[in-house]
């Protein structure tokens, strides 16, 4: 699956985009966040307060309870501030 990071999540994780295989036992975005946090370092910092993090699944805004599969594109970012 493709995972993207924007704004300060990109800065904290140090990457904008990565391809990962859906980890075992992970079925939703909340599970994916747990998996990413376990990497430690920048990832742990980026997801330390998930109330600040917003998620898109295949370019649609979703909640962290959304189910995911290996072919999905998932993006993490702060609340949007355009306009």
């Amino acid at each position, binding site marked *: 699956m493709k995972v*993207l990071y*924007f*704004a300060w999540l990109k800065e904290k994780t140090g990457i904008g985009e990565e391809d990962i295989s859906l980890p075992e036992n992970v079925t939703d975005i909340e599970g994916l966040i747990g998996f990413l946090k376990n990497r430690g370092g920048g990832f742990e910092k980026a997801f330390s307060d998930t109330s600040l993090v917003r998620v*898109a699944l295949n*370019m649609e805004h979703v909640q962290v309870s959304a189910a995911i599969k290996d072919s999905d594109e998932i993006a993490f*970012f*702060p609340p949007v501030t355009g*306009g």
Partner: protein
Amino acid sequence: MIQVQAEDFDIGQELKKISSGNDGIGGVCSFIGLVRDFSGQQGEDKKISSMTLEHYPGMTEKQLAKIEDAARQRWELSEVTIIHRIGRLAPGDQIVLVMVAAVHRNAAFDGASFIMDFLKTQAPFWKKEETGSGVKWVEEKSSDVGSAQRWEKK
């Protein structure tokens, strides 16, 4: 017409594009957002030297198209133009243009206001401000969330 671009835009040219040869249009409402020269973050009032806009290519266009569709379902709109800039901007620079043409005046006003409200809360853009005290990502404004919620109540 939805466009995400680094280049500046010209409101007069955009108006011509949607109105010329389209004499059934009664009114056009436009909104232009500009880079302000001060940061209103958390009670600060600091001079901004630059602002950088990042976005999520693909999702941005998808979300803006959804917002335009929602506006067109709600009001009878003849033409809709949405242009949003990305990259590094200076105070006074244009950030966004929303232009809505309609047969009836209030549809043009409401359509443009609706699109701006949801652009602010749904379109994946992020602003980073550079002030004398460093670089900082702009935080979500509760007034923007509230402004978008106005439309749900109706």
